Protein backbone atom coordinates (compact mmCIF):
# COMPACT_ATOMS: atom_id res chain seq x y z
CA UNK A 1 0.00 0.00 0.00
CA UNK A 2 1.02 3.56 -0.62
CA UNK A 3 0.83 6.64 1.56
CA UNK A 4 -1.39 9.53 0.61
CA UNK A 5 -1.92 12.95 2.04
CA UNK A 6 -5.31 14.58 2.35
CA UNK A 7 -4.92 18.34 2.41
CA UNK A 8 -8.03 20.04 3.79
CA UNK A 9 -9.22 23.51 2.94
CA UNK A 10 -12.33 24.82 4.63
CA UNK A 11 -13.70 27.84 6.49
CA UNK A 12 -12.95 27.62 10.21
CA UNK A 13 -15.72 26.46 12.52
CA UNK A 14 -15.14 29.52 14.64
CA UNK A 15 -15.89 31.79 11.68
CA UNK A 16 -19.01 29.78 10.91
CA UNK A 17 -20.15 30.13 14.52
CA UNK A 18 -21.47 26.60 14.79
CA UNK A 19 -23.99 25.97 17.58
CA UNK A 20 -23.20 23.39 20.29
CA UNK A 21 -25.40 20.82 18.55
CA UNK A 22 -23.74 21.48 15.19
CA UNK A 23 -20.25 21.22 16.62
CA UNK A 24 -21.16 18.03 18.44
CA UNK A 25 -22.50 16.64 15.17
CA UNK A 26 -19.38 17.73 13.28
CA UNK A 27 -17.17 16.06 15.87
CA UNK A 28 -19.16 12.86 15.61
CA UNK A 29 -18.88 12.86 11.83
CA UNK A 30 -15.13 13.38 12.01
CA UNK A 31 -14.60 10.64 14.54
CA UNK A 32 -16.75 8.16 12.73
CA UNK A 33 -14.79 8.88 9.55
CA UNK A 34 -11.41 8.62 11.26
CA UNK A 35 -12.68 5.56 13.15
CA UNK A 36 -13.66 3.93 9.89
CA UNK A 37 -10.25 4.66 8.38
CA UNK A 38 -8.51 3.23 11.46
CA UNK A 39 -10.69 0.14 11.48
CA UNK A 40 -9.65 -0.53 7.90
CA UNK A 41 -6.02 0.02 8.86
CA UNK A 42 -5.78 3.12 6.66
CA UNK A 43 -5.30 5.87 9.21
CA UNK A 44 -1.67 6.85 9.73
CA UNK A 45 -1.93 10.26 11.37
CA UNK A 46 -2.87 13.85 10.93
CA UNK A 47 -2.62 17.27 12.44
CA UNK A 48 -4.15 20.71 12.31
CA UNK A 49 -2.21 23.81 11.25
CA UNK A 50 -2.39 27.20 12.90
CA UNK A 51 -4.09 29.83 10.79
CA UNK A 52 -1.34 32.36 11.46
CA UNK A 53 1.94 32.03 9.61
CA UNK A 54 4.58 33.74 7.50
CA UNK A 55 5.29 33.68 3.81
CA UNK A 56 8.93 33.84 2.73
CA UNK A 57 9.46 34.62 -0.94
CA UNK A 58 11.93 36.10 -3.44
CA UNK A 59 15.65 36.13 -4.17
CA UNK A 60 16.44 38.31 -1.23
CA UNK A 61 13.54 36.86 0.67
CA UNK A 62 10.61 39.10 1.52
CA UNK A 63 8.70 38.04 4.57
CA UNK A 64 4.97 38.67 4.64
CA UNK A 65 2.35 37.76 7.18
CA UNK A 66 -0.21 35.06 6.66
CA UNK A 67 -3.02 34.16 6.26
CA UNK A 68 -2.37 33.93 2.57
CA UNK A 69 -5.80 33.21 1.25
CA UNK A 70 -9.53 33.62 1.63
CA UNK A 71 -10.88 31.74 4.67
CA UNK A 72 -12.11 28.76 2.77
CA UNK A 73 -8.88 28.46 0.75
CA UNK A 74 -6.81 28.15 3.89
CA UNK A 75 -5.18 24.81 4.61
CA UNK A 76 -6.54 23.82 8.01
CA UNK A 77 -4.87 20.48 8.43
CA UNK A 78 -3.90 17.21 6.86
CA UNK A 79 -4.28 13.47 7.22
CA UNK A 80 -1.93 10.74 6.08
CA UNK A 81 -3.66 7.57 5.02
CA UNK A 82 -2.83 4.31 3.29
CA UNK A 83 -4.50 3.18 0.08
CA UNK A 84 -3.87 0.80 -2.81
CA UNK A 85 -4.14 3.47 -5.46
CA UNK A 86 -4.94 7.10 -6.09
CA UNK A 87 -8.39 5.97 -7.14
CA UNK A 88 -8.98 4.20 -3.84
CA UNK A 89 -7.54 7.09 -1.84
CA UNK A 90 -9.90 9.44 -3.63
CA UNK A 91 -12.82 7.20 -2.74
CA UNK A 92 -11.75 7.23 0.91
CA UNK A 93 -11.90 11.02 0.75
CA UNK A 94 -15.64 10.82 0.03
CA UNK A 95 -16.13 10.40 3.78
CA UNK A 96 -14.73 13.88 4.50
CA UNK A 97 -17.35 15.50 6.76
CA UNK A 98 -16.98 19.14 5.73
CA UNK A 99 -18.12 19.16 2.11
CA UNK A 100 -21.37 20.81 3.18
CA UNK A 101 -19.53 23.84 4.55
CA UNK A 102 -17.66 24.29 1.28
CA UNK A 103 -14.60 22.39 2.42
CA UNK A 104 -12.41 20.48 -0.02
CA UNK A 105 -9.88 17.67 0.01
CA UNK A 106 -6.75 17.60 -2.11
CA UNK A 107 -5.59 14.00 -2.48
CA UNK A 108 -1.85 13.55 -3.14
CA UNK A 109 0.33 10.50 -3.16
CA UNK A 110 3.46 10.74 -1.02
CA UNK A 111 6.54 9.65 -2.97
CA UNK A 112 8.38 6.79 -1.29
CA UNK A 113 12.14 7.12 -1.62
CA UNK A 114 13.87 3.87 -2.56
CA UNK A 115 16.67 2.89 -0.17
Amino acid at each position, binding site marked *: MKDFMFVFRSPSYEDLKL*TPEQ*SQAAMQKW*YSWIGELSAKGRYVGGAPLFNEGKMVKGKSPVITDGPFAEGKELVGGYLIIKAESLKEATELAFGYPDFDIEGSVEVREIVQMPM
Partner: protein
Amino acid sequence: MSSDSGESTQQIVDHLFRHEAGKMIAVLTRIFGISNLELVEDTVQETFLKALQVWKYGQLPDNPSGWLMQVARNRTIDLIRRQQKMAGLSEELAERLGASTESAIQQFFLDTEIADSQLRMIFACCHPALNQEDQVALTLKTVSGFGVQEIARALLSTNSAIQKRIYRAREYIRQESVSFEIPVGPELVRRLETVYTVLYLLFNEGYNSIKADELIRYDLCAEAMRLCKLLAEHKVGAQPQTHALLSLMCFQASRFNSRIGEDNTIILLQQQDRSKWDQELIRLGYYYLNLASTGDYLSVYHIESAIAGEHCLAPDFESTNWQSLLGLYDYLLEHKPTPVVQLNRAIILAQVTDVNQAIDTILDIPHIKGLLEHHYIYAAVLGDLYGRVGNKAEARRLLETAYRLTSSLAEKKLLQDKLNSLTLRVDS
Protein backbone atom coordinates in the same frame (compact mmCIF):
# COMPACT_ATOMS: atom_id res chain seq x y z
CA MET B 1 -0.54 13.36 22.28
CA SER B 2 -2.29 10.01 22.30
CA SER B 3 -3.29 8.63 18.98
CA ASP B 4 -6.05 6.15 19.69
CA SER B 5 -9.07 6.93 17.61
CA GLY B 6 -12.34 5.40 16.59
CA GLU B 7 -15.59 4.63 18.34
CA SER B 8 -14.26 4.86 21.86
CA THR B 9 -12.62 8.23 21.21
CA GLN B 10 -15.94 9.49 19.91
CA GLN B 11 -17.68 8.47 23.11
CA ILE B 12 -14.95 10.00 25.23
CA VAL B 13 -15.34 13.23 23.35
CA ASP B 14 -19.16 13.23 23.61
CA HIS B 15 -19.12 12.82 27.35
CA LEU B 16 -16.11 15.03 27.76
CA PHE B 17 -17.81 17.94 26.00
CA ARG B 18 -20.92 17.41 28.04
CA HIS B 19 -19.17 17.30 31.40
CA GLU B 20 -16.67 20.00 30.63
CA ALA B 21 -19.41 22.29 29.35
CA GLY B 22 -21.06 22.11 32.77
CA LYS B 23 -17.80 22.81 34.54
CA MET B 24 -16.78 25.68 32.28
CA ILE B 25 -20.19 27.29 32.39
CA ALA B 26 -20.15 27.16 36.18
CA VAL B 27 -16.66 28.65 36.47
CA LEU B 28 -17.27 31.39 33.90
CA THR B 29 -20.62 32.26 35.45
CA ARG B 30 -18.85 32.86 38.71
CA ILE B 31 -16.48 35.23 36.92
CA PHE B 32 -18.92 37.07 34.66
CA GLY B 33 -22.09 36.82 36.79
CA ILE B 34 -25.24 34.84 36.27
CA SER B 35 -26.89 37.63 34.28
CA ASN B 36 -24.23 37.12 31.61
CA LEU B 37 -25.09 33.51 30.87
CA GLU B 38 -25.16 34.22 27.14
CA LEU B 39 -21.62 35.56 27.05
CA VAL B 40 -20.58 32.59 29.17
CA GLU B 41 -22.15 30.09 26.81
CA ASP B 42 -20.62 31.79 23.79
CA THR B 43 -17.19 31.56 25.36
CA VAL B 44 -17.68 27.88 26.15
CA GLN B 45 -18.88 27.28 22.62
CA GLU B 46 -15.83 29.03 21.16
CA THR B 47 -13.66 26.79 23.31
CA PHE B 48 -15.32 23.69 21.91
CA LEU B 49 -14.99 24.94 18.34
CA LYS B 50 -11.31 25.45 18.89
CA ALA B 51 -11.03 21.93 20.31
CA LEU B 52 -12.98 20.51 17.40
CA GLN B 53 -10.76 22.30 14.90
CA VAL B 54 -7.66 20.84 16.51
CA TRP B 55 -8.85 17.38 17.58
CA LYS B 56 -10.72 16.32 14.51
CA TYR B 57 -7.70 14.80 12.81
CA GLY B 58 -7.75 11.97 15.30
CA GLN B 59 -5.22 13.11 17.90
CA LEU B 60 -6.40 14.05 21.37
CA PRO B 61 -4.24 15.86 23.91
CA ASP B 62 -3.12 13.72 26.85
CA ASN B 63 -5.37 15.64 29.18
CA PRO B 64 -8.33 16.81 27.08
CA SER B 65 -10.19 18.16 30.06
CA GLY B 66 -7.22 20.26 31.16
CA TRP B 67 -6.71 21.43 27.60
CA LEU B 68 -10.29 22.71 27.38
CA MET B 69 -10.06 24.45 30.74
CA GLN B 70 -6.86 26.16 29.70
CA VAL B 71 -8.38 27.46 26.48
CA ALA B 72 -11.43 28.69 28.39
CA ARG B 73 -9.19 30.39 30.92
CA ASN B 74 -7.14 32.14 28.25
CA ARG B 75 -10.29 33.31 26.49
CA THR B 76 -11.60 34.67 29.75
CA ILE B 77 -8.42 36.60 30.38
CA ASP B 78 -8.57 37.97 26.81
CA LEU B 79 -12.17 39.04 27.25
CA ILE B 80 -11.46 40.84 30.48
CA ARG B 81 -8.35 42.54 29.07
CA ARG B 82 -10.41 43.75 26.15
CA GLN B 83 -12.98 45.20 28.53
CA GLN B 84 -10.26 46.90 30.54
CA LYS B 85 -8.83 48.34 27.35
CA MET B 86 -12.21 49.71 26.40
CA ALA B 87 -12.41 51.45 29.74
CA GLY B 88 -9.55 53.64 28.45
CA LEU B 89 -7.25 53.25 31.41
CA SER B 90 -3.71 54.55 31.48
CA GLU B 91 -1.17 52.07 30.24
CA GLU B 92 0.47 51.77 33.61
CA LEU B 93 -2.75 51.03 35.46
CA ALA B 94 -3.86 48.59 32.75
CA GLU B 95 -0.58 46.74 33.11
CA ARG B 96 -0.87 46.44 36.87
CA LEU B 97 -4.51 45.42 36.64
CA GLY B 98 -3.63 42.89 33.99
CA ALA B 99 -1.20 41.04 36.21
CA SER B 100 -3.58 40.85 39.14
CA THR B 101 -6.51 39.93 36.89
CA GLU B 102 -4.62 36.96 35.58
CA SER B 103 -3.82 35.57 39.01
CA ALA B 104 -7.36 36.27 40.23
CA ILE B 105 -8.85 34.37 37.32
CA GLN B 106 -6.38 31.56 37.82
CA GLN B 107 -7.94 31.02 41.26
CA PHE B 108 -11.36 30.28 39.81
CA PHE B 109 -9.93 27.42 37.76
CA LEU B 110 -8.57 25.49 40.74
CA ASP B 111 -10.23 22.09 41.17
CA THR B 112 -11.85 22.88 44.51
CA GLU B 113 -13.17 26.15 43.17
CA ILE B 114 -14.58 24.42 40.10
CA ALA B 115 -16.57 22.03 42.31
CA ASP B 116 -17.74 25.00 44.33
CA SER B 117 -18.92 26.83 41.21
CA GLN B 118 -20.75 23.76 39.98
CA LEU B 119 -22.58 23.48 43.26
CA ARG B 120 -23.59 27.14 43.04
CA MET B 121 -24.91 26.46 39.57
CA ILE B 122 -26.94 23.48 40.78
CA PHE B 123 -28.52 25.64 43.47
CA ALA B 124 -29.29 28.39 40.97
CA CYS B 125 -30.89 25.98 38.47
CA CYS B 126 -32.91 24.32 41.21
CA HIS B 127 -34.15 27.63 42.53
CA PRO B 128 -37.43 27.01 44.41
CA ALA B 129 -39.19 29.86 42.59
CA LEU B 130 -38.86 28.01 39.28
CA ASN B 131 -41.37 25.31 38.49
CA GLN B 132 -40.14 21.75 38.50
CA GLU B 133 -40.22 21.27 34.73
CA ASP B 134 -38.05 24.34 34.25
CA GLN B 135 -35.64 23.32 37.00
CA VAL B 136 -35.08 19.95 35.34
CA ALA B 137 -34.58 21.36 31.85
CA LEU B 138 -32.29 24.15 33.03
CA THR B 139 -30.20 21.78 35.15
CA LEU B 140 -29.71 19.39 32.24
CA LYS B 141 -28.75 22.23 29.93
CA THR B 142 -26.57 24.33 32.19
CA VAL B 143 -25.10 21.92 34.72
CA SER B 144 -25.01 18.75 32.66
CA GLY B 145 -24.25 20.19 29.23
CA PHE B 146 -27.04 18.31 27.45
CA GLY B 147 -28.16 19.77 24.12
CA VAL B 148 -31.77 20.90 23.68
CA GLN B 149 -32.40 17.93 21.42
CA GLU B 150 -31.02 15.45 23.96
CA ILE B 151 -33.14 16.96 26.72
CA ALA B 152 -36.23 16.68 24.54
CA ARG B 153 -35.42 13.03 23.84
CA ALA B 154 -34.75 12.28 27.48
CA LEU B 155 -37.88 14.00 28.79
CA LEU B 156 -40.09 12.87 25.89
CA SER B 157 -40.78 16.43 24.91
CA THR B 158 -40.23 18.62 21.85
CA ASN B 159 -37.27 20.87 21.09
CA SER B 160 -39.38 23.99 21.13
CA ALA B 161 -41.03 23.08 24.44
CA ILE B 162 -37.62 22.55 26.02
CA GLN B 163 -36.29 25.77 24.54
CA LYS B 164 -39.25 27.61 26.01
CA ARG B 165 -38.65 26.11 29.45
CA ILE B 166 -34.99 27.06 29.42
CA TYR B 167 -35.73 30.55 28.17
CA ARG B 168 -38.40 31.06 30.83
CA ALA B 169 -36.10 29.88 33.60
CA ARG B 170 -33.23 32.09 32.45
CA GLU B 171 -35.43 35.14 32.16
CA TYR B 172 -36.51 34.58 35.74
CA ILE B 173 -32.93 34.22 36.93
CA ARG B 174 -31.91 37.39 35.10
CA GLN B 175 -34.86 39.53 36.15
CA GLU B 176 -34.91 38.46 39.76
CA SER B 177 -31.09 38.47 39.92
CA VAL B 178 -31.04 35.04 41.52
CA SER B 179 -27.89 34.77 43.59
CA PHE B 180 -25.03 32.56 42.48
CA GLU B 181 -24.11 31.36 45.93
CA ILE B 182 -24.23 28.33 48.13
CA PRO B 183 -27.02 28.97 50.65
CA VAL B 184 -26.25 28.78 54.38
CA GLY B 185 -28.11 27.89 57.57
CA PRO B 186 -31.81 27.00 57.47
CA GLU B 187 -31.93 28.30 53.87
CA LEU B 188 -29.42 25.59 52.90
CA VAL B 189 -31.67 22.85 54.31
CA ARG B 190 -34.64 24.18 52.37
CA ARG B 191 -32.70 24.61 49.14
CA LEU B 192 -31.12 21.16 49.38
CA GLU B 193 -34.63 19.68 49.48
CA THR B 194 -35.34 21.17 46.05
CA VAL B 195 -32.04 19.91 44.69
CA TYR B 196 -32.81 16.38 45.93
CA THR B 197 -36.22 16.51 44.31
CA VAL B 198 -34.72 17.50 40.96
CA LEU B 199 -32.00 14.83 41.12
CA TYR B 200 -34.54 12.19 42.17
CA LEU B 201 -36.74 13.21 39.28
CA LEU B 202 -33.85 13.12 36.82
CA PHE B 203 -32.90 9.65 37.92
CA ASN B 204 -36.44 8.28 37.81
CA GLU B 205 -37.02 9.88 34.43
CA GLY B 206 -34.14 7.80 33.16
CA TYR B 207 -34.93 4.69 35.17
CA ASN B 208 -38.63 4.40 34.50
CA SER B 209 -39.38 5.92 31.15
CA ILE B 210 -39.72 2.89 28.92
CA LYS B 211 -40.51 5.04 25.92
CA ALA B 212 -37.24 6.90 25.64
CA ASP B 213 -34.38 5.06 24.01
CA GLU B 214 -31.98 3.03 26.12
CA LEU B 215 -28.88 5.15 25.62
CA ILE B 216 -30.35 8.45 26.66
CA ARG B 217 -32.07 6.82 29.65
CA TYR B 218 -28.76 5.44 30.78
CA ASP B 219 -27.11 8.85 30.36
CA LEU B 220 -29.84 10.45 32.43
CA CYS B 221 -29.38 8.02 35.33
CA ALA B 222 -25.62 8.34 35.15
CA GLU B 223 -25.90 12.12 35.16
CA ALA B 224 -28.23 12.17 38.18
CA MET B 225 -25.73 9.97 40.01
CA ARG B 226 -22.80 12.13 38.96
CA LEU B 227 -24.46 15.28 40.30
CA CYS B 228 -25.50 13.54 43.50
CA LYS B 229 -21.91 12.40 43.97
CA LEU B 230 -20.68 15.92 43.32
CA LEU B 231 -22.99 17.08 46.08
CA ALA B 232 -21.88 14.28 48.42
CA GLU B 233 -18.22 15.12 47.90
CA HIS B 234 -18.65 18.79 48.77
CA LYS B 235 -18.53 19.70 52.46
CA VAL B 236 -21.82 21.54 52.19
CA GLY B 237 -23.62 18.71 50.43
CA ALA B 238 -22.22 15.80 52.44
CA GLN B 239 -25.44 15.36 54.42
CA PRO B 240 -27.13 12.10 55.48
CA GLN B 241 -29.95 12.78 53.00
CA THR B 242 -27.52 13.22 50.12
CA HIS B 243 -25.91 9.88 50.95
CA ALA B 244 -29.31 8.23 51.29
CA LEU B 245 -30.37 9.49 47.85
CA LEU B 246 -27.08 8.42 46.31
CA SER B 247 -27.36 4.96 47.85
CA LEU B 248 -30.93 4.65 46.54
CA MET B 249 -29.65 5.50 43.05
CA CYS B 250 -26.85 2.92 43.33
CA PHE B 251 -29.26 0.14 44.36
CA GLN B 252 -31.69 0.98 41.57
CA ALA B 253 -28.96 1.37 38.97
CA SER B 254 -27.51 -2.03 39.88
CA ARG B 255 -30.60 -3.58 38.26
CA PHE B 256 -30.56 -1.31 35.23
CA ASN B 257 -29.45 -3.93 32.73
CA SER B 258 -31.60 -6.78 33.96
CA ARG B 259 -34.93 -4.97 33.70
CA ILE B 260 -35.17 -4.75 29.96
CA GLY B 261 -34.99 -7.82 27.76
CA GLU B 262 -34.16 -8.09 24.11
CA ASP B 263 -36.70 -6.39 21.82
CA ASN B 264 -37.32 -3.90 24.65
CA THR B 265 -39.62 -6.05 26.80
CA ILE B 266 -39.97 -5.45 30.53
CA ILE B 267 -38.58 -8.12 32.82
CA LEU B 268 -40.29 -8.09 36.20
CA LEU B 269 -38.32 -8.37 39.43
CA GLN B 270 -39.54 -11.95 39.81
CA GLN B 271 -38.03 -13.04 36.50
CA GLN B 272 -34.86 -10.94 36.49
CA ASP B 273 -31.55 -12.71 36.12
CA ARG B 274 -30.00 -11.65 39.42
CA SER B 275 -26.52 -12.57 38.28
CA LYS B 276 -26.78 -9.52 35.99
CA TRP B 277 -27.19 -7.19 38.93
CA ASP B 278 -24.15 -5.00 39.31
CA GLN B 279 -22.53 -6.12 42.56
CA GLU B 280 -20.17 -3.15 42.64
CA LEU B 281 -23.12 -0.74 42.60
CA ILE B 282 -24.87 -2.76 45.31
CA ARG B 283 -21.71 -2.54 47.41
CA LEU B 284 -21.63 1.24 46.83
CA GLY B 285 -25.31 1.41 47.74
CA TYR B 286 -24.55 -0.09 51.15
CA TYR B 287 -21.51 2.10 51.54
CA TYR B 288 -23.54 5.27 51.08
CA LEU B 289 -26.45 3.94 53.12
CA ASN B 290 -23.99 3.47 55.97
CA LEU B 291 -22.76 7.03 55.56
CA ALA B 292 -26.40 8.13 55.59
CA SER B 293 -27.02 6.52 58.97
CA THR B 294 -26.00 9.49 61.06
CA GLY B 295 -28.01 12.30 62.56
CA ASP B 296 -31.54 11.92 63.83
CA TYR B 297 -33.53 12.74 60.74
CA LEU B 298 -34.85 9.86 58.69
CA SER B 299 -35.79 11.03 55.21
CA VAL B 300 -37.95 9.39 52.58
CA TYR B 301 -34.74 8.65 50.66
CA HIS B 302 -33.43 6.65 53.63
CA ILE B 303 -36.52 4.45 53.64
CA GLU B 304 -36.68 4.06 49.88
CA SER B 305 -33.02 3.15 49.81
CA ALA B 306 -33.52 0.57 52.56
CA ILE B 307 -36.35 -0.92 50.48
CA ALA B 308 -34.24 -1.07 47.34
CA GLY B 309 -31.35 -2.52 49.34
CA GLU B 310 -33.58 -5.23 50.79
CA HIS B 311 -34.43 -6.38 47.27
CA CYS B 312 -30.75 -6.40 46.33
CA LEU B 313 -29.93 -8.62 49.32
CA ALA B 314 -32.19 -11.50 48.30
CA PRO B 315 -30.39 -14.13 46.21
CA ASP B 316 -33.70 -15.00 44.54
CA PHE B 317 -37.26 -13.70 44.47
CA GLU B 318 -38.59 -16.41 46.81
CA SER B 319 -36.14 -15.66 49.60
CA THR B 320 -36.98 -11.94 49.69
CA ASN B 321 -37.59 -10.77 53.22
CA TRP B 322 -41.20 -9.63 52.63
CA GLN B 323 -41.87 -9.07 56.33
CA SER B 324 -39.03 -6.59 56.58
CA LEU B 325 -40.15 -4.90 53.36
CA LEU B 326 -43.69 -4.56 54.69
CA GLY B 327 -42.33 -2.86 57.79
CA LEU B 328 -40.34 -0.45 55.64
CA TYR B 329 -43.37 0.32 53.48
CA ASP B 330 -45.46 1.01 56.60
CA TYR B 331 -42.80 3.45 57.58
CA LEU B 332 -42.63 4.99 54.12
CA LEU B 333 -46.40 5.40 54.07
CA GLU B 334 -46.17 7.48 57.24
CA HIS B 335 -43.63 9.82 55.62
CA LYS B 336 -45.01 9.81 52.12
CA PRO B 337 -48.71 8.93 52.12
CA THR B 338 -49.23 8.83 48.36
CA PRO B 339 -51.39 6.44 46.33
CA VAL B 340 -48.30 4.99 44.60
CA VAL B 341 -46.74 4.07 47.95
CA GLN B 342 -50.04 2.51 49.02
CA LEU B 343 -50.13 0.53 45.81
CA ASN B 344 -46.56 -0.71 46.23
CA ARG B 345 -47.24 -1.61 49.85
CA ALA B 346 -50.23 -3.69 48.72
CA ILE B 347 -47.97 -5.65 46.35
CA ILE B 348 -45.74 -6.56 49.31
CA LEU B 349 -48.79 -7.34 51.43
CA ALA B 350 -49.92 -9.84 48.81
CA GLN B 351 -46.62 -11.67 49.34
CA VAL B 352 -46.77 -11.59 53.14
CA THR B 353 -50.40 -12.34 53.93
CA ASP B 354 -53.17 -13.15 51.53
CA VAL B 355 -53.92 -11.54 48.22
CA ASN B 356 -57.50 -10.64 49.15
CA GLN B 357 -56.27 -8.40 51.91
CA ALA B 358 -53.97 -6.68 49.40
CA ILE B 359 -56.90 -6.16 47.05
CA ASP B 360 -58.93 -4.58 49.88
CA THR B 361 -56.08 -2.20 50.69
CA ILE B 362 -55.94 -1.04 47.10
CA LEU B 363 -59.69 -0.53 47.00
CA ASP B 364 -59.34 1.60 50.13
CA ILE B 365 -56.96 4.06 48.45
CA PRO B 366 -58.72 7.46 48.30
CA HIS B 367 -60.16 8.20 44.82
CA ILE B 368 -59.20 4.73 43.65
CA LYS B 369 -62.01 4.68 41.08
CA GLY B 370 -60.53 7.57 39.17
CA LEU B 371 -56.99 6.23 39.51
CA LEU B 372 -58.06 2.88 38.06
CA GLU B 373 -59.67 4.62 35.12
CA HIS B 374 -56.81 6.96 34.30
CA HIS B 375 -53.53 5.40 35.40
CA TYR B 376 -52.51 2.11 33.89
CA ILE B 377 -50.34 1.05 36.83
CA TYR B 378 -53.28 0.80 39.29
CA ALA B 379 -55.40 -1.18 36.85
CA ALA B 380 -52.46 -3.43 35.96
CA VAL B 381 -51.57 -4.25 39.57
CA LEU B 382 -55.13 -4.77 40.75
CA GLY B 383 -55.96 -6.83 37.65
CA ASP B 384 -52.97 -9.05 38.34
CA LEU B 385 -54.03 -9.58 41.95
CA TYR B 386 -57.59 -10.48 40.90
CA GLY B 387 -56.10 -13.00 38.52
CA ARG B 388 -54.19 -14.59 41.38
CA VAL B 389 -57.35 -15.14 43.45
CA GLY B 390 -59.20 -16.55 40.45
CA ASN B 391 -61.51 -13.62 39.77
CA LYS B 392 -60.89 -13.80 36.03
CA ALA B 393 -63.69 -11.44 34.99
CA GLU B 394 -62.36 -8.53 37.09
CA ALA B 395 -58.80 -9.43 36.17
CA ARG B 396 -59.58 -9.32 32.47
CA ARG B 397 -61.55 -6.10 32.71
CA LEU B 398 -58.76 -4.31 34.59
CA LEU B 399 -55.88 -5.65 32.51
CA GLU B 400 -57.71 -4.57 29.37
CA THR B 401 -58.19 -1.11 30.84
CA ALA B 402 -54.49 -0.96 31.66
CA TYR B 403 -53.66 -2.08 28.13
CA ARG B 404 -55.75 0.76 26.75
CA LEU B 405 -54.19 3.33 29.09
CA THR B 406 -50.52 2.75 28.40
CA SER B 407 -48.87 3.89 25.22
CA SER B 408 -45.66 2.01 25.87
CA LEU B 409 -45.25 -1.04 23.66
CA ALA B 410 -43.18 -2.83 26.28
CA GLU B 411 -45.92 -2.41 28.86
CA LYS B 412 -48.60 -3.45 26.38
CA LYS B 413 -46.70 -6.64 25.67
CA LEU B 414 -46.42 -7.45 29.35
CA LEU B 415 -50.16 -6.91 29.84
CA GLN B 416 -50.97 -9.00 26.80
CA ASP B 417 -48.93 -11.87 28.24
CA LYS B 418 -50.93 -11.63 31.47
CA LEU B 419 -54.21 -11.60 29.55
CA ASN B 420 -53.08 -14.66 27.58
CA SER B 421 -52.17 -16.59 30.70
CA LEU B 422 -55.66 -15.84 32.10
CA THR B 423 -57.18 -17.52 29.04
CA LEU B 424 -54.82 -20.47 29.35
CA ARG B 425 -55.89 -21.07 32.89
CA VAL B 426 -59.57 -21.03 31.82
CA ASP B 427 -58.86 -23.71 29.23
CA SER B 428 -56.97 -26.07 31.50
